[in-house]
């Protein structure tokens, strides 16, 4: 059986014109270059990459807004840009900065209009709306015109709007922009719940912690090229970044002797004299217990901790290369 989303050799080249003195100059921007991937039904996929990497461009093609320069894609059996009308019935999408609500209308009226557009039956609409309004805590601004909403409120209203017709697949381009810690936690939990109920979700965001809490599978794109495809834990393993071991010395012994300095060198560590903190790098091949034993023998230790490399570190490392 074929996968839910299949992308083959997808390319998008933008043509831009630059005004020069005499004549304008044509320039091609290869926003997406030969991207291939598959996504299974019910998956929660994280799509990350630095600014200008081509994420939004990919999403636009997968939602049928943009026709690619070359390549193929199929989502739920449809080619998004060829069968747009039929395809979009089952699709929900959020584009971080662009509102899909009616600026002058109260939130609830926007939903009524969307209901009519997607021809959602009354009963189903009522259930879905109750569910969304409650889960996304929309009640407090339910009757306010959209233009008066705060950024965070609008984002939640948008999310509900993209789910009114209960689509099977969701494309979210930076849906957590402008949310405070609490609303964000709420939205993330909600997204996970949707996914557990069988929705396929395709998420881009710059907040890697969001990705870490939600997505098992991730794609990384840079300069239009897909550079990683797989699970998050594999990525971490592959990156092979060291764990960091941090110890703080007791006040009486903050000067290092020769022997101690050698140990530091062995583990490519460094010493911060001001707060008496030593940082050592611990690679997978090395045994932490062994090292700990040495350290406790040779140093007067006040505090001791091991830090796993965070996803931030891993991704920073990848973006740089």
């Amino acid at each position, binding site marked *: 059986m074929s996968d839910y989303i299949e992308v083959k050799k997808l390319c998008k080249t*933008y*043509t831009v014109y630059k005004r020069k003195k005499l004549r304008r100059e044509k320039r091609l921007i290869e926003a997406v270059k030969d991207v291939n991937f598959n996504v299974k039904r019910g998956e929660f996929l994280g799509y990350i990459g630095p600014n200008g990497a081509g994420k939004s*461009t990919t999403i*636009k093609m997968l*939602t*049928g*807004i*943009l*026709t690619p320069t070359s390549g193929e894609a199929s989502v739920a059996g449809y080619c998004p*840009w060829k069968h*747009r*009308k*039929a395809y*979009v*019935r089952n*699709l929900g*999408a959020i*584009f971080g900065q*662009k*509102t*899909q609500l*009616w600026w*002058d*209308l*109260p939130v609830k*009226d*926007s939903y*009524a*209009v969307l*209901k*009519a*557009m*997607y*021809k959602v039956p009354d009963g189903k609409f009522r259930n879905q709306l109750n569910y969304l309004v409650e889960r996304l805590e929309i009640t407090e601004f339910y009757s306010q*015109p959209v233009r008066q909403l705060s950024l965070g409120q609008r984002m939640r209203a948008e999310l509900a709007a993209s789910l009114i017709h209960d689509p099977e697949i969701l494309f979210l381009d930076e849906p957590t922009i402008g949310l405070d810690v609490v609303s964000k936690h709420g939205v993330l939990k909600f997204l996970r719940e949707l996914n557990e109920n069988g929705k396929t979700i395709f998420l881009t965001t710059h907040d890697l912690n969001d990705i870490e809490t939600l997505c098992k599978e991730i794609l990384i794109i840079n300069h239009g090229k897909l550079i990683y495809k797989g699970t998050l834990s594999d990525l971490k393993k592959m990156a092979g970044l060291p764990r960091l071991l941090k110890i703080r010395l007791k006040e009486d012994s903050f000067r290092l002797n020769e022997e101690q300095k050698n140990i530091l060198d062995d583990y490519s560590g460094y010493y911060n004299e001001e707060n008496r903190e030593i940082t050592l790098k611990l690679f997978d091949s090395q045994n932490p217990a062994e090292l700990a034993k040495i350290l406790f023998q040779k140093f007067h230790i006040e505090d001791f901790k091991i830090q796993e490399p965070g996803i931030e570190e891993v991704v920073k490392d990848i973006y740089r290369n």
Partner: protein
Amino acid sequence: METFKALFIASLKSQTEYRFNFIMDIILSGLAIFSDFMITLVILSNFKDMAGWNLGEIALIYSIIEGGWGIFRLFGEGLHRFQELTLSGRFDVMLIRPVSTVKQVMLQKFQFRRLGVIGQAVGVGIIGALYADMASPGFFVVYCILIVLSAMLIFSVNLILSAIAFWTIRNEDILVLASYSMRTAAYYPLNIYADFVKIVLTFIVPMATAAYYPMSYLSGKTDSIFALIAPILSLIVFMPLSFWLWKQGEKHYSSTGS
């Protein structure tokens, strides 16, 4: 149709929330447009007629154009401000919905204060018909049909002008050029203009076919039945043309991105 109803009701509710403001807006925006006609009124108070057209007949021409314009602006505000959608990229959102984009753009907003514009147009029309001694039940039926045709013609002209924004992103100025200036030109009898302008207003931006030609038939200035059905003839050409152009524009838009 469902969508239309839902948005119509929602717009009406939100715009009538402050009833006083709503009514003031209707009256004042009607008045603003009416001031254009007042100028004509003042001018004609000094003269008997304008190129053989008396005040009543000119009032009727004005009324048919302005009535159509008012109806178009009531339902087509979104089309009129189409560049806001292309500029902000919000047009993207319309491509992911299962309703035709023309409809969605039209459905951006209903502008109920345009009722004032329609109201003053019809007022001017009725008084004009009485003044020109043309008022009869039969005439008013034709008059109503002409206003509707005029609205449709203005719609298709504007659809063409809006489609330009698919290529240029901005279209406000073309819109002002072609839509406003041609509309204003069409307020007055066509025979005051140079031949070149007559051709433009008849065949290129065919606003004169909405009111001037049928009025010359109805006021007995010509016997050609073609003058009466001129709006229908130009609709037959321009309506399909405008939708075709829009389709092309949409294709172009989705191959270049916003």
